[in-house]
């Protein structure tokens, strides 16, 4: 009796947390709530210095990769599951890194995209073929279900294992729509948004959020930000609302509340928005709670009103039970590119830390409008740093520094949310954040949040249509090209925005460009904050300076927190993977990587040896110009 009761209790506990067995890694952020927390503690602050490479796997066997590997592997049973920017999916032996199977998508397979991870699902009460599945999506917007044991397509899912995500999306040009973050699995539904090419034209593919039955692939519901009450698939010949806010970042979910939390972007084009509908304005850069069974809207919280800065939500919302007056409250932490971190009650969307609407700079672009105020999370630390001044301008010599000072003085800058216009403006933080898709990791026991954040301004100019036409700016056949002026067809202005760099191709502002900060979630106070990364792999014109001095070089990617009090993070343009003491911020261990590790690491215990492994993808990054790699690298303590 006692034993049955105990089993029932254990079962209900595991259902409540919807967490994988300790030692495995079942979702992108380990748990469905994106905490990026591991309960493992074999690797400790004391022994982490002995960590060594256990194995290296190359997705393309050393062939030159054509895009950046950003994947965080999943670990189930004794296998790792990964995906590549060219849509291959692989299962690897968790102990040795040897390839077990490889899924090759049908040709042509030369399109670049991003794949941050795959989705795993175990069909309840099923055995045999496709009882356990891996889901991925391809550059031509197909959702594919694979047998986790063999890598073969699941015949019972959609049409021979494939669901066409272009249904209801209108005319989708190549490279204009695909899913970059792994679909979230909640209550047997696969829920996903999609990436949409930035700044090409006003009627780009819909930002619709869709759910499919994880077993059959049948359409379950849609959340169309243009018609939030209509959850049906459009009849043939019709489409979801075009040009609506999309969601490309990882989502999170709460199985018990039956809610999926969707970090929304804005209705592209990003830098001029008078044409946007009232519905688009409502959902722009908002975190939206949808009912997992129906897609019905439960609540929303908007992090930027009438977003004309590309401050779309890039970070997975992180769910944590927050200690408030000694009681756990189901909370949601939403990091933003703005450097504001909002803390909400995930049942209701109400704020748990004070949020103030503060006046922001005015003076919209011709024909556009601005919100007089924007929300600021005053109960949490600010992850932007002080406002810029001319004295913050930087260089290697007085000459390039002077160039940056002149550019700064020539531009408009009135602090956060300075609007874009025909006269150049400084957008700070720029479109990489603040906090980008790396999000935050949270140690729920110690209530400590780890934030890696950037300080990189953009230099932004709107180009009147007539001048843009003369420059030949048109919506591109290849979609979005980072760093190039973009057409924004259907609005009066094209846009030219990129990182604010000097002619030596180094940032115009002084370092640090990236920091790592630990925050006590209970008090909202900073525990420690340190510039992150040295200058050894970077320098003018991308030439490495070999300066082993902490500078805080640009970083994109996430961290993992462990029960033993360690934080694992690559992320930096410096090709280095580190373990950091969560209590002090001190670097306890570091290893050089063959390419920068712009991916979130993960950790697991291999059942074959019982050893804890830590894995990171070393893949470089397209927007940061850091060279590509195709490495999956596992570290472990030496065998005893």
């Amino acid at each position, binding site marked *: 009796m006692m034993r049955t009761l105990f089993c029932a209790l254990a079962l209900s506990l595991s259902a409540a947390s919807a967490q994988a067995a300790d030692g495995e890694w079942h979702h992108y952020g380990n748990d469905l709530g994106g905490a990026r927390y591991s309960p493992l503690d074999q690797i400790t602050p004391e022994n982490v210095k002995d960590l060594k490479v256990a194995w290296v796997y190359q997705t393309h066997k050393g062939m030159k990769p054509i895009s950046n590997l950003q994947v965080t592997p999943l670990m189930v049973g004794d296998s790792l599951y990964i995906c590549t920017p060219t849509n291959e999916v692989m299962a690897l032996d968790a102990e040795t890194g040897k390839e077990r199977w490889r899924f090759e998508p049908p040709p042509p397979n030369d399109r670049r995209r991003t794949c941050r991870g795959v989705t795993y699902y175990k069909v309840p009460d099923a055995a045999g073929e496709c009882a356990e599945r891996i889901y991925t999506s391809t550059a031509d917007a197909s959702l594919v279900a694979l047998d986790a044991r063999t890598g073969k397509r699941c015949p019972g899912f959609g049409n021979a294992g494939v669901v066409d995500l272009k249904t209801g999306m209108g005319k989708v040009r190549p490279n204009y729509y695909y899913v970059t973050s792994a679909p979230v699995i909640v209550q047997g539904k696969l829920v996903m948004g999609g990436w949409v090419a930035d700044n090409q034209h006003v009627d780009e593919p819909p930002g619709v959020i869709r759910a499919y039955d994880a077993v059959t692939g049948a359409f379950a519901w849609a959340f169309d930000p243009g018609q939030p009450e209509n959850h049906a698939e459009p009849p043939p010949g019709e489409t979801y609302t075009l040009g609506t806010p999309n969601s490309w970042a990882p989502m999170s979910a709460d199985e018990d509340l039956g809610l999926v939390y969707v970090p929304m972007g804005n209705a592209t084009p990003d830098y001029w928005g008078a044409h946007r509908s009232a519905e688009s304005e409502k959902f722009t850069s908002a975190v939206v709670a949808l009912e997992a069974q129906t897609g019905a809207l439960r609540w929303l919280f908007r992090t930027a009103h009438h977003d004309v800065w590309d401050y779309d939500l890039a970070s997975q919302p992180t769910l944590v039970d927050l200690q408030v007056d000694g009681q756990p409250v189901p909370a949601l932490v939403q990091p933003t590119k703005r450097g504001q971190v909002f803390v909400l009650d995930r049942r209701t969307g109400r704020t748990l830390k004070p949020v103030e609407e503060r006046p922001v700079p005015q003076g919209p672009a011709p024909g556009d409008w601005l919100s007089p105020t924007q929300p600021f999370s005053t109960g949490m630390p600010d992850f932007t740093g002080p406002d810029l001044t*001319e004295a913050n301008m930087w260089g*290697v010599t007085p*000459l390039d520094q*002077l160039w940056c000072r002149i550019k700064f003085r020539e531009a408009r800058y009135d602090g956060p949310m300075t609007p874009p216009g025909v006269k150049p403006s400084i957008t700070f933080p720029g479109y990489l954040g603040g906090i980008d898709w790396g999000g935050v990791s949270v140690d729920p026991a110690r209530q400590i949040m780890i934030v890696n954040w950037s300080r990189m301004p953009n230099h932004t100019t709107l180009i009147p249509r007539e001048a843009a036409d003369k420059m030949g700016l048109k919506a591109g056949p290849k979609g979005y090209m980072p760093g190039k002026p973009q057409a924004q067809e259907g609005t009066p202005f094209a846009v030219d925005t990129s990182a604010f760099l000097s002619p030596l191709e180094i940032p115009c502002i*002084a370092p640090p460009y990236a920091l790592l900060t630990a925050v006590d979630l209970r008090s909202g106070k900073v525990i420690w904050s340190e510039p992150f990364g040295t200058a050894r792999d970077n320098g003018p014109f991308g030439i490495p300076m070999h300066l082993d001095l902490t500078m805080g070089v640009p970083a994109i990617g996430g961290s993992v927190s462990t029960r033993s009090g360690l934080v694992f993070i690559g992320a930096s343009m410096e090709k280095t993977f580190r373990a950091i003491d969560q209590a002090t911020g001190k670097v306890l261990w570091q290893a050089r990587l063959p390419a920068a590790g712009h991916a979130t690491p993960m950790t697991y215990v291999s059942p074959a040896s019982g050893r804890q492994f830590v894995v990171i993808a070393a893949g470089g990054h397209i927007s940061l110009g850091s060279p590509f790699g195709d490495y999956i690298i596992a570290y472990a303590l030496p065998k005893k």
Partner: protein
Amino acid sequence: MEPAAAYPPRAARPPRLFAALLMLVGLPLLAGGVWLAALGGSLYYVVAGVALASSAILLWRGRAAGAWIYALLLAGTVAWALWEVGLDYWQLLPRIGLFAVLGLWLATPWARRGLA
């Protein structure tokens, strides 16, 4: 063995290559500095540009005053840099680095030999 006999002193020549280098830095600094000042920015670059250009002209002519002006510029630059950014070494680098390196060369006997 007398070293002086082995290495007879060269004829004193003004450090013209160095002077030209200073002018090459000084002129854009002056032009950009005027522009920055017109935009309401720091006046330092105008002052530094004038000092560099005068130092360059005097050094070209072999006048020791050129070195003194340079020394004054370096001292003034250090004071200004500390006032503007404090002890942040990354921020001090663009402000002091280049001028300090050039100043070190100017302090060597080879540079001073050609100055009257």
